[in-house]
């Protein structure tokens, strides 16, 4: 009889807890290093909110007021954790600043998933459970490799790499990937005069246009410009203003914002890498759901080093305008 009562109680608890899990919505916070005015992050947010809506989860996306401010992001993480969420999704743009707060979150039983940007040491860098985003160095390498198909077959080559945010992991690593490729390209073509250099290009269309425009004035023989973001769309305008035909200075970069797609259609941008921001917002929520309900361990997802070329633009443009690509 006593065993029967015990079994009945266990069954009741199980039923109640299952019902509670079914009724209590997941509480998730997503902290990022960007300000809300960055178009790219709106696509991440859309993916995040769509996923949350599908699960009926309570979700909040928290931006910083000063773009790239690590201390603001850490403060936002602290505030989000004080509310006792089920999970925390965060970009990790610094290799040390987030370690402590992530460890405390894990100690408190909060699932922590890195999205978009990871610690340079990966899983060894801190206690986050998975990374969902682009491998920046390989992506930079892929960009360089894809654009090199458009390099002239003969003669000297001069390449400029625009580091949009010097010192920030995402920008430095993408630039490093491009420069790694250039090193390999130089090694593979020992008889050719090939040079590359980097520049602090900035994250404002007007500033990038002005700086790269100035560089092109000094070096009209520039073969290609690589931007670690999407701000080379402004450079395309400079080239058009100067009457430089599409393809004379090759342009390539990252992320499919509408401005870049228009310049791809115009022929000024030849290659773009898509890291699928919608997926970076959507998939962490799904992994959290699976971890909470089925106990599956969160795992890494590479959201892509997809090379996009002008022939693919029409199909993508509509999705991009809707914030899905």
């Amino acid at each position: 009889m006593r065993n029967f009562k015990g079994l009945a109680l266990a069954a009741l608890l199980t039923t109640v807890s299952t019902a509670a899990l079914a009724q209590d919505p997941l509480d998730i916070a997503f902290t990022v290093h960007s300000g809300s005015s960055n178009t790219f992050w709106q696509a991440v947010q859309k993916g995040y909110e769509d996923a949350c809506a599908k699960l009926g989860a309570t979700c909040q996306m928290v931006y910083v007021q000063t773009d790239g401010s690590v201390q603001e992001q850490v403060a936002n993480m602290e505030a989000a954790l004080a509310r006792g969420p089920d999970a925390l999704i965060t970009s990790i743009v610094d290799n040390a600043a987030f370690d402590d707060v992530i460890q405390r979150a894990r100690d408190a039983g909060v699932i922590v998933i890195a999205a978009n940007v990871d610690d340079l040491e990966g899983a060894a860098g801190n206690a986050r459970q998975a990374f969902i985003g682009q491998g920046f160095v390989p992506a930079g390498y892929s960009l360089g490799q894809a654009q090199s198909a458009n390099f002239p077959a003969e003669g000297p080559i001069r390449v400029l790499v625009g580091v949009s945010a010097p010192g920030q992991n995402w920008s430095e690593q993408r630039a490093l990937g491009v420069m790694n490729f250039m090193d390999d390209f130089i090694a593979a073509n020992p008889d050719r005069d090939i040079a590359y250099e980097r520049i602090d290009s900035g994250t404002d269309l007007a500033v990038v246009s002005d700086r790269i425009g100035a560089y092109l004035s000094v070096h009209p023989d520039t073969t290609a410009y690589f931007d670690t973001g999407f701000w080379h769309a402004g450079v395309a305008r400079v080239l058009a203003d100067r009457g430089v035909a599409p393809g004379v200075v090759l342009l390539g970069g990252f992320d499919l914002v509408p401005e870049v797609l228009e310049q791809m259609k115009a022929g000024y941008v030849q290659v773009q890498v898509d890291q699928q921001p919608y997926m970076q917002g959507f998939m962490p929520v799904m992994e959290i759901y699976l971890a909470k309900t089925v106990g599956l361990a969160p795992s890494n997802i590479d959201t892509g080093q997809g090379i996009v070329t002008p022939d693919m633009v029409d199909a993508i443009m509509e999705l991009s305008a809707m914030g899905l690509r």
Partner: protein
Amino acid sequence: MRRLLKLALQKPEMAATLLLVLLVIFFQIRSDMVFLTYDNLRGMLGFLPEVGLVAVGVTLLMICGEFDLSVGSVFALMPMTMAVMMTMGWGFWPATGLGLLVCAFVGFLNGWITIKFAIPSFITTLGMLFMARSMTVVISGGFPPRLNMDNIPEHLFVSYVGPGDLFRASFVWFVVISILISLLLSKTNFGNWVRATGGYLPAAEALGIPANKVKIACFMICSVLSGLAGLMQVLRLGSPLPSIGEGLELQAVAAAVIGGTALAGGIGSIIGGIIGAVLIRVIDNGMVMSQVDSNWFKFAVGALTILAVVGNSWLRKRGRAMKVETER
């Protein structure tokens, strides 16, 4: 001659002008004589009206004794308002008119809150910086609307109009507006009121100057000029990104101060603010031209800013100390 020199040295914009000339010569030499080439000048002159108009507005307001840190956000809010309204079927002119009205309202709010609650405009406009930026993102839904350039009279704003296509129409707007604001400041009662209000407020009020109205008018002019500048940038680049203009407020304040505007108000000139804005653009552009290591960019801009202000202070002291004979 000595009298003229004394007057020149006491001009608030003198140090910045000298530094500008020296830097242009320096960058021209460092860049193997490419700095002043047609293409580069054309690029700089395309960008200048946008930062210049903001600097003009901020300079006017600082002479009046107030700050506006929301100009960078208003710079983005105005064209976004216009773009969103155009996607809703409005024509270019009504949409632009509404955008400018929004700017004027933001300026009015900045002034009214500052005066009504007697709080520093630094705080009021810092709050407005965040609010206006947030509004920009909210009304766009995060995704910038596409501008249909066929419905926009580009030729009135950004098409090349100058000799040899050196200038854009925006440069003409910039020059005309700058002259008008300069005349407003130097030739009208309103200009005297602005200087008096910024110079010593109690005395201005004792003289019967409507200081509160003067301040609110300056806030509104500053906001409208920022919005107009934002419109010109968006039409030039073809893209109403919600992030444009971030950090512009500090550049504009720096331009005004470099150009000799006193932080405490009362002293300064529109031409000084313009020279300050040109100086900042020349430094940024010249750094690229002279192939300075990119990691030193911000250091150089900061150091040259301090140099300009220190030089300004030194020259004015020298000017004041210079003795001239007075006519009997």
